[in-house]
């Protein structure tokens, strides 16, 4: 009886512990969504909302939507570019055998090891240097942001594609080749469809990393190319307005919808496994 009692006690403590951590993780999101519906005409925030209203939703500044557009264009391009770099890199890292492979793998992971602030400043310096030599200044331009964000996000694609490739059954390719398919046809018709879930997952992570980045965008974006997250950062620092909560609510539900859609497409397990490995 006492063993059973201690087991159920342990169960309760465990469940409470898990619930507490999840509450900690999700409370900020719940609070932002909740406070965005507060109707009070105040500059300070209320949660739980005192009287429900969509007041702040009508007062979102147009330049926030413009920044959102920049971020979506930037994130999409950077995610595509990260796939162009990451998919061949993952294929090479998983399948080729060569000396110094561990070092090459570490070099591909380097953008995760360098603090993002340092990546931001060093790309700023790089762009000034390239500008001084060629006359083309990438600072404050969309291409400049795309290059830096591709650098920042490519390890995520490499991580998720590698995770899928490691479980790839090579017999599938051998079968295709022995049946007379060319290497390119084999890659396109056999390999690529199997690794696509990894590519989708990596691309989405790359997009979300680009979308959420503040430090790099802070150094490289300016004026009309200021990405959304950097803009929110500035507003929170200097000029807070509750309409931020309204647009943040859109972003929260947008991100969740994106992750849910991906989960439907690739399955929960692929989503988690490649998420943990990167």
């Amino acid at each position, binding site marked *: 009886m006492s063993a059973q009692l201690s087991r159920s006690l342990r169960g309760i403590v465990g469940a409470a512990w898990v619930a507490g951590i999840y509450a900690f993780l999700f409370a900020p999101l719940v609070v932002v969504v909740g406070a965005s519906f507060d109707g009070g005409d105040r500059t300070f925030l209320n*949660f739980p909302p005192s009287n429900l209203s969509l007041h702040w939703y009508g007062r979102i500044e147009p330049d926030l939507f413009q920044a959102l557009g920049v971020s979506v264009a930037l994130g999409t391009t950077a995610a595509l570019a990260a796939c162009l770099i990451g998919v061949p890199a993952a294929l090479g890292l998983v399948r080729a055998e060569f000396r110094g492979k561990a070092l090459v793998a570490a070099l591909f992971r380097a953008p995760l090891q360098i603090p*993002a602030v340092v990546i931001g400043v060093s790309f700023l310096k790089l762009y000034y240097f390239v500008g001084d030599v060629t006359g083309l200044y990438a600072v404050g331009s969309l291409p400049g942001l795309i290059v830096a964000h591709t650098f920042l996000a490519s390890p995520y694609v490499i991580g998720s594609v590698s995770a899928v490739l490691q479980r790839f059954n090579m017999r599938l390719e051998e079968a295709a080749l022995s049946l007379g398919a060319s290497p390119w046809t084999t890659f396109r018709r056999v390999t690529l469809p199997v690794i696509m879930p990894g590519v989708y997952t990596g691309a989405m992570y790359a997009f979300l990393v680009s979308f959420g980045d503040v430090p790099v965008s802070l150094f490289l974006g300016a004026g009309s190319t200021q990405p959304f997250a950097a803009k929110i950062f500035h507003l929170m620092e200097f000029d807070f307005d509750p309409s931020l909560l309204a647009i943040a609510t859109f*972003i929260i539900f947008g991100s969740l919808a994106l992750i849910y859609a991906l989960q439907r497409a690739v399955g929960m397990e692929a989503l988690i496994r490649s998420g943990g490995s990167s």
Partner: protein
Amino acid sequence: MRARWHLILAPSLVLSLALLLASQFIFLRGSFFKDLRLGRLGTEFTLENYVRFLTDSIYVDSLILTTRLSATVAILTLLLAYPVAYILARMTSRWSMVLLAAIVAASFITIVIKVLGLIIIFSSGGALNQTLLWLGVVTKPVTIVGQPSGVVVGLMHFTMGFAVLLLYGVIRTIPRSLEDAATIHGAQRWRVFKRVIVPLSLPGVIVTALIVFNLCMGAFTSAALIGGGKVYTLPVLIQQTVIMQTRYAMGATISAVLMAVTLIINLVSIAIAAWLGSVRRLTA
């Protein structure tokens, strides 16, 4: 077909390596030249910036603060995340997948929005304070926004999801049958935990702790916003030095020290862990 895979990797490697080396070399090289402000550098090689870092208390204090906060976060996050990861790893129902997916989803929502939520919760007029006042726990509003403790909470929030996911992967590699065997042989639950699960997961725990520590050493957004411009960790100081003061050489010096110290702490921790491991093996 087999021989070509390393050629497929080559263009990606050249591109990534070029961006990595060019950006880091041009930037960090600046730390060895005199800072003439506005991005201009002197022409003579000098260690002046590094001497300044070591002799000016702003920089040394910031280094100590950043390291202390990061170590605190690594320990607290691991202690809180470990039981969650253990319970999820030993869960037999499909709920474990749903709970893990929820962590992945939460991890990838833009950090500025999560920080915004944390600030609302912890601000002096916020929900937490009103509850505490109502309960009579505090007599006047307290806030951790603008305090190092607030930055600790913010960084814990930032790293908690990663820690649970990484520890989940570690604990999943420990076969459940080992626990069952120990229990069948009469070991108490607590002893099973102490003698089987903890030792077997220790290498993974150390790796996770270092990843969390490294993330915190380089964390900018939560430190800058929750710190409210009052908590100067090294990443915040780098941004201030470059953007507000346009002192690129000093910014490069702080960056170089930050990365070097982080690397050294990692190497020393791994060496200590390896040494302790071999000591334990000798005494066991």
